[in-house]
């Protein structure tokens, strides 16, 4: 080796050149390794080893569950793992409709948002729509067609049905469905009806028969007109819950609140009067609410007509000599005439800018409503009869014919098209024992329900998220449905059934396409059909308004109707009974379980009713005075109440009661949609079936039932409520409100400014704080909630639940007050007591003013939860977010105790994969788990959780901006709650962005160390005095009260 060359050595031994090493260096392998086969291991040892090895391997294999995760061999172009795809589609359930955008992840629909292009559902979703994505993953759905309660194949089923259909030709065939608004479906049904000589009859769970018939008689169109609440300065509702139980209430919410949001430069807002028995969402949002029996509407309306006639006689009806409705004047004392005078004054001042609506299902009453609207010049302004709705067209009278046919055994075939009339139709539910004479009964229900169990054939329909369809919810406005997932089970769209059963050789998808090919020709569009069609599906909605329809129909002479009405109304008024020991029962549809179609959806079952905050039950709501008479004992602590015995036509039913402030005296309320027996494990036997109380004797569905006797059974029952304290206790730093009168004079009216007494005089809390303030250099996320816009509907609550994988805990745990909602809506009633009477303040007024306050983590800048966590599991982000690190949380719960807003939720148990929480179907079976949002962790037992300001969405927005190499723009990040809100009550954004909506909404003047100086007078922070400096701002409520 020459000098300078490096020597490489393998080990110290080689370097040292130790003789013993040199000797053995040739033997590369040390001799003690038994490689020569000369070991002492016997054959026995080998067998032992092998035995052990096999046993060990198989044991290991037993323990590790095999998870199927099959990657795409060839990745589809538009499918990227972890990136969401969105598809426009259309929600349909019962008679309801909503244009939606479906978010899918890795091919699974996980969230439904509104389609902003739609002019009918205006991009909003209701709790029903939001929840429907879980119904897709309901294990209760049928996995294959059924023939005589046995699983079968579609070809077998088709053979059977066709044979049956052709064998019976003498007796009648009926197709029963909810209102169908799909033009192509109608075409398909028509084909079938023509082929098999069948009749298609439609009904709605809540019948609009009276309104439809009145419209038909009034202007020859049996449809519900389009209302525009945004053009109405005065709205008078006689029991019509247009903000809650109504069809398309999202649109009405949006229109209504457009006129409720005031600011410095617009100090005008509409006024809403509500006359109603049950405290509805509309009543809760009205400026003047008059509790009344619904049987008194005819008097109210007649008197209103008379007052208006005398006041504006010379105006619209001058040429017709407005008549006066004469009725038994002794009944006049039953109504509140003072308020009616005020209402009339308001209406006269706002000719053409008002709207009268009523929920009565009586044709004459609705006709009177129409005439008053006409008298006030509302047609063509706030009511548009050209763009009428197709989504509630059911005709109750047809069911009279159906009834007599079935009683005579004159029906051979019955097809129940996605409906469950044995449960929810007032006629058919009473005829279920007569169905035996029908030789072919087909249900297209997705599960074995109350109706399909009586059917010999069940042809399960695909979920709307698996289906093709077109819809025409409002004349000439179309909405399209496309599948967002391949069919999960062996189901088939019912339209395909009809095509096959009428021997058409075309699939429904092609059928729709052909229909639209023809429509395209009519619309004079010259683009290739595929482009036209793709655009329809991409947008999800389209409008094709023929030229001739642009003008308003002239309305006929009202005198024609008044004669008939007069007698009808008079007989209605004469039948009013003033007996004091009988009650009037008003059955209604709530915003949670609604009509009961989705009763097996635990999100809806656990959603608190917007008014009573009850979940997992329906109940009789009783006025406090009546409750006193009935001696109902309630306890807010244990949530216990009495069960009332309701006696009607000789049969009695035991139903729990709650004391409902605002309930009209002498009336009680009960919600529909409960008491199902075959909905599935979640919805079965929850509450009482109110449909069963509906009389089948009347020719139309009547939700007001008089002569109901109530008595206290003395039995106690625990009813789950998420809020049990009803009043605000005069706490002005929580709820601030004022009246429009005051606001007009001074936009700061009603502002409550807490001042701290110091040695240097009184100071604002932020001037004496111990905190140094924060510096948010990049983003500063802030939310504002307009209490004037929030109607309390609760869509946001469900949207939050879906987006954030919030578990359902079941009734027992809600009774233990452990519901997990990150976002709740606090509902407060006013009290009549003096502000110093702390005990009196606990009792709500008999007819209270209601305030809704959405409450979630306030993301305090000086968060009290952060300072007390021993392990720093909840920390502050550099963007003003209060972050929760689940993995770090050890569950001391101090943060929740120290939270002044009580928005933190603790995982008391393991809610996923736990048989104890089987109602939480989204986390307890493999099918249900498909709905979980993969961007949000499913929390483990023992950790705290709370609103994160949808941090996953913020992150998504940031990544999107980054991938497009730009700064985050306002609107890139949208909260789940804000997206679902139909009234734009929730605004979210970055206040550091000078162009952001939130900055404009709050009119941010200056930001000093994260402390906002706002010009918006209505803005306030809840509990400002404790100086936690929340990043959620509330805008003070303004009421436009007419003081009587």
């Amino acid at each position: 080796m020459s000098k300078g060359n490096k020597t490489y050595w393998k080990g110290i031994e080689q370097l040292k050149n130790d003789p013993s090493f040199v000797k053995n260096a040739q033997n590369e392998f040390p001799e003690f390794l038994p490689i020569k086969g000369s070991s002492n291991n016997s054959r026995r040892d080998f067998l032992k080893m092998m035995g052990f090895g096999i046993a060990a391997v198989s044991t290991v294999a037993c323990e590790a569950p095999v998870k199927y995760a099959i990657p795409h061999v060839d990745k589809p172009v538009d499918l990227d793992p972890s990136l969401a795809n969105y598809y426009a589609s259309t929600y349909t359930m019962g008679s309801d409709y909503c244009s939606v955008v479906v978010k899918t992840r890795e091919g699974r629909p996980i969230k439904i948002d509104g389609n902003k292009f739609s002019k009918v559902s205006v991009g909003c979703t209701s709790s029903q729509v939001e929840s429907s994505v879980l119904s897709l993953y309901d294990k209760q759905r049928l996995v294959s067609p059924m023939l005589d309660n046995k699983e079968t194949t579609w070809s077998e089923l088709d053979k059977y049905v066709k044979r049956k259909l052709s064998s019976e030709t003498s007796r009648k065939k009926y197709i029963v469905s909810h209102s169908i608004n799909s033009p192509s479906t109608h075409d398909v049904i028509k084909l079938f009806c023509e082929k098999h000589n069948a009749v298609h009859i439609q009904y709605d769970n809540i019948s609009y028969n009276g309104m439809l018939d009145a419209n038909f008689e009034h202007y020859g169109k049996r449809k519900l007109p389009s209302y525009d609440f945004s053009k109405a300065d005065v709205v008078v509702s006689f029991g019509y819950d247009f903000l809650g139980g109504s069809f398309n209430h999202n649109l009405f919410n949006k229109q209504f609140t457009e006129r409720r949001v005031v600011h410095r430069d617009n100090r005008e807002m509409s006024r809403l009067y509500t006359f109603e028995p049950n405290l509805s969402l509309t009543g809760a949002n009205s400026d003047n609410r008059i509790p009344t029996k619904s049987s008194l509407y005819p008097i109210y309306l007649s008197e209103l007509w008379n007052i208006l006639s005398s006041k504006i006689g010379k105006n619209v009806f001058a040429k017709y000599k407005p008549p006066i409705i004469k009725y038994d004047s002794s009944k006049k004392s039953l109504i509140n005439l003072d308020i009616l005078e005020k209402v009339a004054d308001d209406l006269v001042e706002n000719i053409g800018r008002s709207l009268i609506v009523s929920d009565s299902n009586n044709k004459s009453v609705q006709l009177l409503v129409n005439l008053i609207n006409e008298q006030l010049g509302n047609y063509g302004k706030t009511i548009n009869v050209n763009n009428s709705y197709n989504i509630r067209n059911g005709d109750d009278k047809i069911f009279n014919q159906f009834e007599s046919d079935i009683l005579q055994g004159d029906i051979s075939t019955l097809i129940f098209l996605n409906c469950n009339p044995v449960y929810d139709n007032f006629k058919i539910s009473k005829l279920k024992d007569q169905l035996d004479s029908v030789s072919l009964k087909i249900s297209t229900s997705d599960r074995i329900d109350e109706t399909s169990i009586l059917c010999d054939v069940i042809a399960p329909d695909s979920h709307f998220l698996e289906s093709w369809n077109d819809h025409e919810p409002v004349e000439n406005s179309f909405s399209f449905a496309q599948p967002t997932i391949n069919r999960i089970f062996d189901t088939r769209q019912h339209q395909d059934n009809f095509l096959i059963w009428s021997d058409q050789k075309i699939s429904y998808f092609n059928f729709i396409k052909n229909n639209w090919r023809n429509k395209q020709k009519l619309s004079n569009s010259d683009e290739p059909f595929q482009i036209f069609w793709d655009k329809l599906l991409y947008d999800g909605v389209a409008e094709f308004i023929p030229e001739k329809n642009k003008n308003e129909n002239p309305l006929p002479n009202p005198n024609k109707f008044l004669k008939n009405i007069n007698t009808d109304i008079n007989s209605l008024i004469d039948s009013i009974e003033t007996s004091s020991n009988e009650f009037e029962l008003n059955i209604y549809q709530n915003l949670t379980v609604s009509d009961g179609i989705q009763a097996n959806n635990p999100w809806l079952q656990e959603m608190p009713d917007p008014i009573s905050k009850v979940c997992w039950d329906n109940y009789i709501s009783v006025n406090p005075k009546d409750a006193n008479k009935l001696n109902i004992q309630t306890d807010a602590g244990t949530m216990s109440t009495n069960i009332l015995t309701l006696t009607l036509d000789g049969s009695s039913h035991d139903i729990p009661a709650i004391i409902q402030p605002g309930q009209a005296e002498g009336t009680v309320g009960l919600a529909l949609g409960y008491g199902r027996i075959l909905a599935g494990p979640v919805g079965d036997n929850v509450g009482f079936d109110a449909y069963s109380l509906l009389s089948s004797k009347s020719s139309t569905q009547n939700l007001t039932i008089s002569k109901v006797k109530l008595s206290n059974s003395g039995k106690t029952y625990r009813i789950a409520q998420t809020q049990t304290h009803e009043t605000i206790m005069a706490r002005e730093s929580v709820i601030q409100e004022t009246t429009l009168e005051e606001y007009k004079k001074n936009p700061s009216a009603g502002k409550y400014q807490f001042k701290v007494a110091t040695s240097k005089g009184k100071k604002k809390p932020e001037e004496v704080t111990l905190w140094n303030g924060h510096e948010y250099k990049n983003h500063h996320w802030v939310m504002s909630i307009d209490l004037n816009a929030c109607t309390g509907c609760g869509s946001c609550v469900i949207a939050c639940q879906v987006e954030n994988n919030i578990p359902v805990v079941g009734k027992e745990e809600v009774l233990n007050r452990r519901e997990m909602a990150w976002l709740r809506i606090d509902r407060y009633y006013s009290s009549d007591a003096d502000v110093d009477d702390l005990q009196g303040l606990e009792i709500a007024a008999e007819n209270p003013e209601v305030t809704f306050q959405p409450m979630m983590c306030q993301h305090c800048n000086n968060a009290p939860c952060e300072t007390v966590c021993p392990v720093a599991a909840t920390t502050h982000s550099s963007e003003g977010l209060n972050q929760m690190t689940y993995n770090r949380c050890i569950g001391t719960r101090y943060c929740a105790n120290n939270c002044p807003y009580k928005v933190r939720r603790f995982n008391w148990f393991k809610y996923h994969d736990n048989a104890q929480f089987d109602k939480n179907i989204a986390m307890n079976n493999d099918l249900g788990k498909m709905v979980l949002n993969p961007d949000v962790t499913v929390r483990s037992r023992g950790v705290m959780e709370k609103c994160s300001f949808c941090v996953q969405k913020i992150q998504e927005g940031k990544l999107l901006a980054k991938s497009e190499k730009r700064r985050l723009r306002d609107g890139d990040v949208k909260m789940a709650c804000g997206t679902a809100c139909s009234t734009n009550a929730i605004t979210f954004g970055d206040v550091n962005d000078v162009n952001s909506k939130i900055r404009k909404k709050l009119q941010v003047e200056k930001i000093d160390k994260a402390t906002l100086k706002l010009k918006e007078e209505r803005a306030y922070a809840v509990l400002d005095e404790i100086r936690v400096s929340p990043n959620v701002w509330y805008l003070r409520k303004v009421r436009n009260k007419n003081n009587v």
Partner: protein
Amino acid sequence: MHVESKLRKPLITGGKTLKDVSEDICKRVEGKPSLMWYAAMIISNITLVVGAYAVYRTLWDGIGMWGLNKTVMWAWDITNFVWWVGIGHAGTLISAILLLFRQRWRMAINRSAEAMTIFAVICAAMFPLLHMGRLWIGLIWVLPLPNTYGSLWVNFASPLLWDVFAITTYFSVSLVFWYIGLIPDFATIRDRAKRAGRKISAFIYGVLSFGWDGAAKTWSRYETVSLVLAGLATPLVLSVHTIVSMDFATSVIPGWHTTIFPPYFVAGAIFSGFAMVLTLLIITRRVYNLEDYITIKHLELMNIVIIVTGSIVGIAYLTELFMAWYSGVEYEQYAFYNRVTGPYWWAYWSMMTCNVISPQLFWFKKIRTNIAATFIISIIVNIGMWFERFVIIVTSLHRDFLPSSWAMFYPTIYDVGMYLFTFGLFFTAFLAFSKYFPVINMAEVKSILKHTGEKK
């Protein structure tokens, strides 16, 4: 001849000699336990096992087994924790502060008081541990240990963390102090066992006594260490409950957010600690015939401490009410209005009756020197102090700022079970202690015998 000080009454009565002292105390350790002891031990063990089931269910199923809810996230757990910590106060106070103040009467009672402290602190520690949602990681993560999470540190601003430090410090110092005091007595038992030829006993106590040789140098070191530890322990008497009170005082919740809490809690802790010592000693002296060592004089002096601390607590209650009114803060005012008249009025008035009114009876000499009355009142005080913590925790939480979240708290059988568990633990430990350890500090008691009551 029996000489008595003219100024002071003897602390040990019955004319005991040094031998008598060794004999009286050691025979409990050496002899077979009485039937009473067996009965008590069996009851304690049953309680412990029943309670352990509640612990098991809590660990296995979750904190949801308790009655807590979204509004009241602490209730019996932290009530019991503060209650036990409070009880654990008397030991250190008696052994440390009274040692520094040269209060020799403490010598007869400090051993059992300290034992009580140790066991009470163990019981107390059960609750912050078991109330954690994820004990298995919480146990490690609350300690400021170096870690591989990019060195994720604990939150030093959190009073719960201060609690961890306060309790562990207090426990270790109390334990060491107690054990050091036991060493000479263990040596006595060892020597007696050796002489009597009980080899196993001699070996065990030999190990426990760390080879104590009784040399003058050893005694001198022993006394120095005792004094140093007393000095160390003294601030702890004040710090532990001060920090426990900060669990509440540093919050924003009306009814918790008060600066009066540290002194008020410390006084309350001494109050309840003395009451518990009284309860236990009255039983112990009776069962073990130690009336000559733990005399009426002891009980009376402790009763005086109870009057003083009870009155401080009473004044604190009234001050809270006054401050709530005077502050002008509506939430503060409502919190106290609700405490007095709200749904939990019964808890508040139980607390007031037990803690403020009942100890005032001790102004009468007849009552404070009556053993039965003392025993009953000591128990009443302990019930009252439990209610005090319950009132502070539950009534403040159940109706705080937003009325929408107001709720009631109802305990489940598992809440009761957890409490029983600590009772079982405490009495099992205390009974074992009273059997195997000398319940009175023989070495120290002998020192007061010389001064006050030696037979000539």
